[in-house]
């Protein structure tokens, strides 16, 4: 039993920190740290910097252009990039589609698509959820009907994150209505510029355009864009959901967010003393801090036991539930810490180059919006209620 990282792993941590000091633009880190909006260009800039170092696809094996890191190295990288306020990596191509193609894609598909994920040629988005298929994903209805060398796709996807930027979408489509609903699903790669595709924004409660509806009307998709076998898409979809779970607990982001909360609580005053010294507020912070300390070790235990970054389903579910609960609690406390100054919302203040006088403390502007935005964490990627069923069903083997 030894919770320490090896000297080699600590040396690697130093290497990552040095890289971040040298290569993470201060402009981007400042935007992340202060909760400013990131543009498509910001995200692409960071992508290019990581890719130049060979660290973009940090969970990929070497033969596909990844660095071939151990689970511990990937974990250290996740933590250090979060603590340095690096922009998040948009996961759809690199963490979701990439692993599916490596395992189930044809040689031609791997050769064509994987390098384009690495160099950012294609911005991928995910076509899973539908208006009638959320937690019950397998009841999806978007259909793909074979017509010569093409599938003709009709239907609607929703909650498509950053679909407005996307060049490509990987979609679960129904190719059969025979048998169980899971057995008639296929996995298709669709060019977003194909005629018949329409993207409509969904504005979220914080006023942001983060997600979209995507409509498909007689969209013709070449058959070579089918991944694996027809009607086997559910298997690939499930693999995608279990593959990249090493960072699902979001420990690094929660650590950074907790530091931020503690700084705010030390600045805010209550009864002439720092809010951090108020017994009730201090107890709230301490509770979530201890939960996070425990989660760091739980996360490492799961990672240490997992091979290829794929822990058993119920352990991934535990990390997802508690990791998101911790993150949500921190954003909730940050909102509470502001007191009445959680209320003003000057949306332009979140844009780079805004010169207006801040309302209240200079860190206040994004806090309430960030809290509202992060309510999504317990809903997406399989709601926390679905995760709870996954845990108990796995434990019960019913």
């Amino acid at each position: 039993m030894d919770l320490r990282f090896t000297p080699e792993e600590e040396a690697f941590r130093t290497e990552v920190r040095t890289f971040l000091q040298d290569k993470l633009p201060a402009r981007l880190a400042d935007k992340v740290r202060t909760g400013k909006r990131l543009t498509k260009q910001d995200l692409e800039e960071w992508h290019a910097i990581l890719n130049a170092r060979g660290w973009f696809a940090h969970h990929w094996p070497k033969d596909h252009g990844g660095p071939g890191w151990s689970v511990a190295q990937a974990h250290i990288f996740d933590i250090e990039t979060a603590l340095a306020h690096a922009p998040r990596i948009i996961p759809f191509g690199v963490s979701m589609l990439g692993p599916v193609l490596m395992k189930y894609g044809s040689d031609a598909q791997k050769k064509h698509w994987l390098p384009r994920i690495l160099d950012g040629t294609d911005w991928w988005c995910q076509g899973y959820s539908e208006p009638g298929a959320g937690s019950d994903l397998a009841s999806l209805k978007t259909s793909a009907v074979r017509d010569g060398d093409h599938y003709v796709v009709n239907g609607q996807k929703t909650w498509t994150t950053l679909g407005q930027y996307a060049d490509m979408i990987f979609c679960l489509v129904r190719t059969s209505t025979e048998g169980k609903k899971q057995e008639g699903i296929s996995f298709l790669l669709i060019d977003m510029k194909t005629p018949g595709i329409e993207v409509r924004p969904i504005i979220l409660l914080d006023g942001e355009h983060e997600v979209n509806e995507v409509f498909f009307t007689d969209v013709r998709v070449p058959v070579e864009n089918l991944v694996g076998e027809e009607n086997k898409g559910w298997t690939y979809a499930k693999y995608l959901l279990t593959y990249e779970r090493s960072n699902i607990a979001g420990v690094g982001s929660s650590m950074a967010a907790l530091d931020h909360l503690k700084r705010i609580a030390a600045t805010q005053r209550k009864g002439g003393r720092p809010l951090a010294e108020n017994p009730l507020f201090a107890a709230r912070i301490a509770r979530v801090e201890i939960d996070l300390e425990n989660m760091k070790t739980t996360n490492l235990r799961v990672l240490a036991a997992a091979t290829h970054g794929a822990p058993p389903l119920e352990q991934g579910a535990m990390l997802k539930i508690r990791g998101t609960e911790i993150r949500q609690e921190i954003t909730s406390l940050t909102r509470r810490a502001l007191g009445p100054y959680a209320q003003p919302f000057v949306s332009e203040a979140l844009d780079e180059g805004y010169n207006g006088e801040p309302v209240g403390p200079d860190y206040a502007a994004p806090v309430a919006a960030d809290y509202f935005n992060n309510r999504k964490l317990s809903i997406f990627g399989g709601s926390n209620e679905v995760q709870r069923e996954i845990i108990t069903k796995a434990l019960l083997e019913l």
Partner: protein
Amino acid sequence: MDFHHSADRQMLADTLGRYLQQRYPIETRHRIGASDAGWSREQWTALAGLGVVGALFAEASGGFGGTGFDIAVVFEQLGRALVVEPFLGTLMAGRALARAGGHETLLGEAIAGTTLVAFAHEEPQSRYDLAEVETRAAGSGDGWTLTGHKAVVPQVEAADRILVSARIAGAPGDEAGIGLFLVDRAAPGLAIRGYPLIDGGRGGELALEATPATLISDDAYPLIEETVAAGIVALALEAVAVMDVLKAATLDYLRTRKQFGVPIGKFQALQHRMATVALEIEQARSAAINAADALDGDRTKRERAVSAAKYTIGRAGTLAAEEAIQMHGGIGMTWELPLSHFAKRLTMIGHQLGDEDHHLGRYIALGRAA
């Protein structure tokens, strides 16, 4: 990082686990726990013979373990069987003696299991605060006497000798001025009022009236704090083990108990509750591992990890105990089902060496001081 026990520790755990499974089934435990003595010298001697006590102490003290993870493997096994014998007191008293130094013979007897030493620190008014010592020490040089009251000392009637904290100087609440003393069970002015505990075994109130005592340490607070830290690591792992038993029993019940024509594990309301319990147990296990890991490190890190663990164990333990009873329904309320006794033990661990609120407050204070 490596989350496996060393081969030696794993072997000890396996040996101990096998022994307890064969020789310490729940019926035996009930009989021992409810007996007049509240423990079994025969079991104690056999367990000491297996090296279970020796594993709790470092080689320099005459044992062959003594790290946080040595304590962890032992108490995890003891917890699975709800062992009532005085391991916690022996761990704490022995650790304090080892830290104080100069009592090798007594320590050797304690490790051999031939002399039982209890650790009596808490008082009726101290409510888990380690510096709230009112018991007074009078005298100096070769002659000390103690006067005061020590509260709910586990298995104190079984002890041959008792380590007692008492104030040499200062006021209750002061960390300075606390001494640690050794008193003989048969010393004049010493009275024990023993009683059964709700979770099995026995405890007692220790009353001292001008009781002759030998000084062990005249600046004992740091030593007491470190001793209590080791006790908390032990309780944390015991609690995790009890939670594992409760979890397995509850899962089994959800699988087999049928209502409305289906196993009750098919019901979402119970699935969600069970998932939360399972998740909290893993968080509690992590907290216990963190504390065991920190036990041998620097003071602030150690005490923060220990308080975080005791807080977590207190919170998760209450949840796990209450939910196990709830999900078992009426049968969970019965004496006959072993589950209820595990639930009682788990709940009462929350009342030993500081509860959830105490350790949350302490964690905050330690963070502020850091």
